């Protein structure tokens, strides 16, 4: 069964595909330039000690975003 959730809701290490990227313009532009665009495969690989920020794996690189902003990215599981 396929469902659309926001990035922070992903179970750890579960592969998903980016569905849509929203958020503050500069932030959105920067993560898109770094390859987080619709269709990109992404996994949540780590959560920092106090539950924030998160580390994602995409395009064989690792990217950390804060929970609040990562929630602007929707993914399909």
């Amino acid at each position: 069964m396929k469902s659309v959730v926001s990035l922070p809701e992903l179970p750890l290490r579960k592969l998903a595909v980016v569905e849509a990227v929203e958020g503050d313009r500069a932030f959105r532009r920067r993560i898109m330039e770094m390859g987080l665009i619709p269709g990109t495969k992404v996994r949540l690989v780590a959560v920092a000690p106090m539950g924030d920020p998160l580390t994602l794996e995409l395009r064989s690189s690792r990217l950390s975003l804060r929970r609040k902003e990562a929630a602007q990215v929707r993914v399909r599981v």
Partner: protein
Amino acid sequence: MSQSSTPASAESLRPLVALAGHPNTGKTTLFNVLTGSRARVGNYPGITVERRMGEAGLEGVGPVDVLDIPGTYSLVARTGEEQIAINAMLGLAGQRRPDAVVICVDATQFVRSSHLVLQALEFGLPVLVALTMTDEAKEAAPDPAEMGRHLGCEVVSVVAAHGRGVAELNTAIARRLRDPERREIWHWQPTAWLRRLLAETRTALPADWPSCDAMALWALMSVEPGDELHGIPAALRRAVHLPPETRKRVDDEAILGRYAFMDATLAPLGHHEPDRSLTERVDRILIHPWLGLLIFLLLMFVLFEGLFAGADPLIHLIERVFAAAGDEIKHALPGSILGHFVADGLLAGVGAVAMFLPQILLLFFFLGLLEDSGYLARVAFLMDRPMRAMHLHGRAFIPLLAGFACAVPAIMATRTMERRRDRVLAMMVIPLTTCSARLPVYTLIIGSLFPARRIGGVLPAQGLLVVFMYAFGMAAALLAALILSRALPPLRSRRLPLVLELPPYRRPRLRDVRGMVWDRSRRFVTDAGTLIVICSVVLWGLLDFPRQPASPSRDWKAAIAQVEPAARPEVERAKEAERLQQSYAGRIGKLMEPAIAPLGFDWKIGIGLVGAFVAREVFVATMGVVYGLEPDTAGSSLTLREKLRQEKRPDGSPLYTPLVGLSLLLFFALACQCTSTLAVVRRETGSLRWPLFLFAYTSVLAWLVSFAAYQTGRLLGL
């Protein structure tokens, strides 16, 4: 500052090769290999970001200048720091226009890294690609020739650390320099709508900017209300002031357009996923919620211990060498002002600069290893949440911690943060952490004025007070960050979202780390060092002049001649005490007295405070001289402690009560009375404004807190 002279005038008319690329793509290693690690380091005008220039010899071309552009993900910019890349690559804002642009592309993530290449090609820049990390990428690396054919520029595979491919890269650069052709290459087609928008925007571009679609696109994507860009004319701002949906549409079209090409045409060139199992395995431990934190704290303990214990023998050695050299000079030139000036003024100042070096070397060596291995980004990840609560950058943790050893290397370590606002905020609060120079002062005050009792028969009261002072310093630093970042417009700037790449773990290259440590130390000595020596000489003058008591209370010469030889040192010390009390510093102390009396201090403490400007621990020695005691730099002198306890106010009550002690402790904890710290802040911010602000706000804060503590204590009858 001499280094920030305009680059165009100061440098030769040799061809200029610019080196660009994402962070962590081996760009610095390549720069070091091309230039033989000899970089002229300056600042970009107006911004304290280092501008590294080197020189390389190219066959058939001769010597060329090589510019190392700070790592960047995109040419689109949001801050002045990010704007450096576009200015340097296009030769805008007074920069020299490069004759070739080498873009480093990490072969293990060449698809994503190519985004920057595509942007540069759209500008028609003379681009060539250095495909780095091919040894690590193995099968995942694309074939350079094929990749070059698709991109429309030359691609050379390089493993800079082993020198592989460097000769080929040199040949390719030489070829590019001989080829005058500049062609705009677009790998995606803007829609008719965007083309119209680009054409309109082009008409609003400043005359000295290239009038091309890429430049118009840059303006559309970068310029927006609230950005922190420099030199954007109002006319252009008006032209690109578009509704948010329109801007998003522009972003989408450009970025998705490029990625469509990259994913369809470039991605198939890599036949494998790169092997990331090492990073995957190591990260499972190092950024594990509690295990990672534990290891981080352990590492920080090692760093801290190294700064404290490791650097100590070296610092003492330097201290002894300079003291011995000073004695030699005084012996060689007995009684002369010149000998006195060289030994106690100049040499002491140079010695003070030299004594900072062991900690600077150690801290930067450690930071270099952390950065090059990829761990420093993990520190920012682990510390982001707690530091953000205080409006500090996650990477500010290490400088703050290093501040407990000494604020000077700690302030230099703020360089690991990219944004000026983050760096300056950290610099403004680091001096509040309890540096090791405060410890002798604390030991003297606590040892003489507080009882060596055990609370409840177990906890040592004096030890607890020391621990309290450390906690107080840290709390003050964090609170100050919180308040300054709200109250001070230049430090306020809206909080930016975190977008932090965690690079793959790699073995640090010692040669690069060594080069960086050498660069930093050299610049500390030449820039901040000069200022520290000057300040040290000025303070020496205040403390040591006039050479004879201005209005002697007795005929000292006769007094010394009269007493028997064994008692002479004592009379000489009494004379020296009177001389210091009547010196310029003594006069300042008396001038200061009305200001510091409400804190419970008298003018003799005022002299000590002047002395503490050289370095805080000098307070102890200065107080020793004020009270005519034997020179003692260790601060453990029992006689000085006795003396403090016996000292009386004019009305006969003891001067140094525990309450005065507390007031003095709080004052020392908060006031940034350290010329070296101020000198290094001046050097790192490139302005006089910040060190002056730092001095002013910490002095006012220290005065207010000491005042509150002393007066409250008095009301309570302490």
